[in-house]
């Protein structure tokens, strides 16, 4: 990590500042490799970041943290999720014999560190399947590169705010005609006319334009997108002048993620039992419905993030327990059952209490529960379920559907290749999937991600220059030539057009900084709006960022806390939150009248009403 900011500007007394500002250490330690008295600790270190750290220092940190972690969790019979060591804090995850630690500056809110570690592990499992299996099938070097990739994806570029809130990077909707967001949403809906397409998202230059997936899933998908994008830019993947190409890769969903997607409005089989959703009859009435929606979209989408659109409803917490259990037998593919000897729930990992939350619940609550409890992490670490992961790992491949008249012929060839792969790799995935549907309805622990296996799915990417259509599809999709062509051809013109539109949008000169700064975090869509420095985020030394970070931590730790003002002699920052959002506001100018004792004339007390009025024009309604 390079560090551009002068430590002095941060006000920290020493060079420690440089280290503790951001994530300093990350490691994965496999306790199963270090059982005996004489086993060297280094045997257990699967990955250590920064990689150039001397081995004995690695051993010191791993040995100490893993030892303390295990000791505390055995004494307290509850999982260690967090340790503090001198001036850095460590988010901890333990799963079977695996031990993860992510060290961050004390400045970063605890919840954010934990969230970051969860994201990291989730990302790994999303692209590689179970951790144990991955380490059995791949070299440590290969996997180290992947950890490094995921780590670098989560860290740089993301602003301080993005780190605090772990939010999605979205396109700046203030400069984008809402009709274009509608266009993006319609492209996604059109793709869902193919029943093998579960859900999708559209990204432009690494930012979300529209998504039908949960923010967490969207974030995972974005990693692959940005990787392929940078690869292409480096010239290795330049195929064709149009810059459009289709590729796919295997990904692994948790059972609850899959069920969430399958219970989405478009799913004809499941929509009947769901809570009323306006999207329910989508298949039949899609055209007229979206037409009528256009008016409202035109008028009020400015105050919504770009990822709302017609799919917004799908974020509502409508997935009850019953939804899960009813929908779990849904996948209709008949497939060869595979023998999956270890499908029965693994021995429960006694230290995991958070696993009782469903991922969706934790998604809603992650910022309010004191531990930031996202529990999906561990679930993905479960090792022994899939024998076939390795086969699937190699699946990623690019193929090309370009060119309509010649392409029709070409694509047959191409898809044959895909089809083959579908047979040996993904076909088996299908079998697994069919099998793993079994346990959930019967066991009450069906929502427990600890116990749920990872289900291989395919991520289909269609790139048009900086624009990417990413679809999560059932593996058979890639061997279904007709479906692939249908999806490809029905979206190509619109994607071309959308890309042309988005490309021509100027960054939009942001007006002079107003007399106030604010940041607004939409917890449901995981999006951020701010007017600080003209871009999402801001310099970490900015007092407003630090105040926001501190208030966010307080909100996370105190569930009942709804409003707070944090102040220094010269400035005051107001924070307010609800289940759906967190908003932070600071008014510039005007001297604070502050006598040091509580005073009703204190101008800090006018902040809440100022915030309410000022932020209305940004589409933030605090009333």
């Amino acid at each position, binding site marked *: 990590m390079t560090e551009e900011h002068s430590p002095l500007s941060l006000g920290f007394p020493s060079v420690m500042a440089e280290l503790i500002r951001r994530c300093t250490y990350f490691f994965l330690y496999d306790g199963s490799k270090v059982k005996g008295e004489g086993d060297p600790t280094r045997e257990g270190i699967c990955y250590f970041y920064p990689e150039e750290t001397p081995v004995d220092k690695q051993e010191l940190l791993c040995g100490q943290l893993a030892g303390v972690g295990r000791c505390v969790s055995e004494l307290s019979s509850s999982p260690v999720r967090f340790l503090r060591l001198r001036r850095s804090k460590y988010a901890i995850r333990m799963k079977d014999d695996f031990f993860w630690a992510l060290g961050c500056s004390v400045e970063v809110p605890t919840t954010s560190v934990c969230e970051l570690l969860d994201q990291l592990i989730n990302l790994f499992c999303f692209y590689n399947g179970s951790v144990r299996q991955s380490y059995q099938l791949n070299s440590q070097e290969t996997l180290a590169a992947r950890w490094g990739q995921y780590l670098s994806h989560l860290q740089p570029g993301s602003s301080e705010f993005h780190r605090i809130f772990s939010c999605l990077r979205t396109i700046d909707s203030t400069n984008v*005609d809402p*009709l*274009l967001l*509608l*266009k993006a949403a*319609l492209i996604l809906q*059109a793709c869902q006319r193919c029943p093998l397409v579960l859900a999708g998202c559209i990204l432009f230059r690494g930012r979300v334009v529209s998504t039908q997936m949960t923010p967490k899933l969207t974030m995972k998908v974005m990693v692959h997108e940005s990787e392929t994008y940078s690869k292409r830019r480096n010239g290795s993947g330049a195929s064709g002048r*149009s810059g459009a190409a289709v590729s796919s890769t295997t990904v692994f969903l948790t059972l609850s993620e899959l069920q969430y997607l399958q219970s989405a409005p478009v799913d004809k089989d499941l929509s009947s039992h769901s809570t009323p959703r306006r999207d329910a009859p989508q298949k039949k009435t*899609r*055209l007229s419905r*979206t*037409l009528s929606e256009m008016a409202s979209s*035109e008028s009020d989408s400015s105050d919504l993030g770009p990822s709302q659109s017609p799919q917004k409803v799908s974020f509502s917490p409508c997935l009850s327990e019953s939804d899960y259990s009813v929908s779990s037998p849904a996948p209709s593919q008949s497939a060869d059952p595979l023998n999956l000897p270890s499908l029965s729930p693994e021995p429960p990992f006694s230290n995991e209490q958070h696993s009782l939350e469903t991922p969706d619940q934790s998604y809603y609550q992650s910022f309010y529960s004191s531990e930031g409890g996202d529990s999906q992490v561990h679930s993905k670490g479960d090792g022994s379920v899939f024998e076939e992961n390795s086969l699937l790992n190699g699946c990623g491949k690019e193929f090309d559907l370009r*060119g*309509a*008249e*010649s392409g029709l012929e070409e694509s047959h060839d191409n898809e044959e290749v895909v089809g083959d792969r579908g047979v040996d790799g993904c076909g088996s995935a299908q079998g697994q999937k069919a099998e793993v549907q079994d346990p959930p309805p019967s066991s009450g622990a069906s929502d427990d991600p600890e116990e749920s296996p990872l289900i291989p799915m395919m991520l289909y990417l269609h790139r048009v220059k900086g624009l990417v259509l990413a679809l999560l599809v059932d593996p058979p999709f890639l061997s279904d030539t007709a479906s692939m062509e249908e999806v490809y*051809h*029905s979206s*190509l*013109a*619109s994607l*071309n*057009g*959308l890309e*042309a*539109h988005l490309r*021509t949008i100027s960054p939009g000169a942001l007006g002079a900084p107003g007399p106030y700064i604010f940041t607004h975090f939409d917890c449901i869509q995981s999006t951020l709006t701010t007017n600080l420095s003209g871009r999402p985020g801001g310099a970490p030394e900015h007092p407003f960022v630090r105040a926001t970070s501190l208030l966010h931590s307080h909100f996370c730790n105190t569930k009942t806390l709804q409003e707070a003002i944090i102040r220094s002699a010269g400035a005051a920052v107001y924070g307010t939150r609800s289940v759906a959002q967190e908003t932070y506001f600071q008014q510039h100018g005007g001297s604070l009248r502050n006598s040091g004792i509580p005073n009703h004339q204190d101008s800090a007390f006018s902040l809440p009403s100022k915030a309410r009025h000022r932020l209305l024009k940004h589409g933030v309604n605090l009333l």
Partner: protein
Amino acid sequence: MTTKTSLLKVILLGDGGVGKSSLMNRYVTNKFDAHLFHTIGVEFLNRDLEVDGHQVTLQIWDTAGQERFRSLRTPFYRGSDCCLLTFSVDDNQSFLNLGNWKKEFIYYADVKEPEKFPFVILGNKVDVTERQVSTEEAQRWCQENGNYPYYETSAKDATNVAVAFEEAVRRVLAMEERTDHLIPTDTVKLHRKPRSAASCCS
């Protein structure tokens, strides 16, 4: 000339619902979807073809016909090599609006010599039995407004679609050949003089 592939941009303009997107889809993917949604803004597809020995990549820009999408579509008129003004033979109003579409195009595309710009007029939906615009009416309009070629098409049953697009290509190529002849007399060579070695910066 025959080995060179040139990119030609043609743009479909006309009232909403006359079948612009369907024409494009029919020509490029040979498919017809009766339930297409309104085009929002612009979309485009490429198709390679050979016309009279010329290899061209035709880039067909499909636009939103509805008034409310005007600000989204007009920035994309520039750089068009040919404009396909489209109406529906079962909708008289769409025929009457052809003049407005022509004006809008000339204005936003910033066409230098409007009288020389290649327009092609398409009367779509000839598969429909209740016509409101007769062939003679349409041909008369084309005669009077610049002697534009007129094609009656049906995206639904593929009537005349390919012919119309190929005609568009021919018009563009013909235009280019005419200007090609003029080039030697008209152009100013912009080659820089070789810099003198004694320039101040060296």
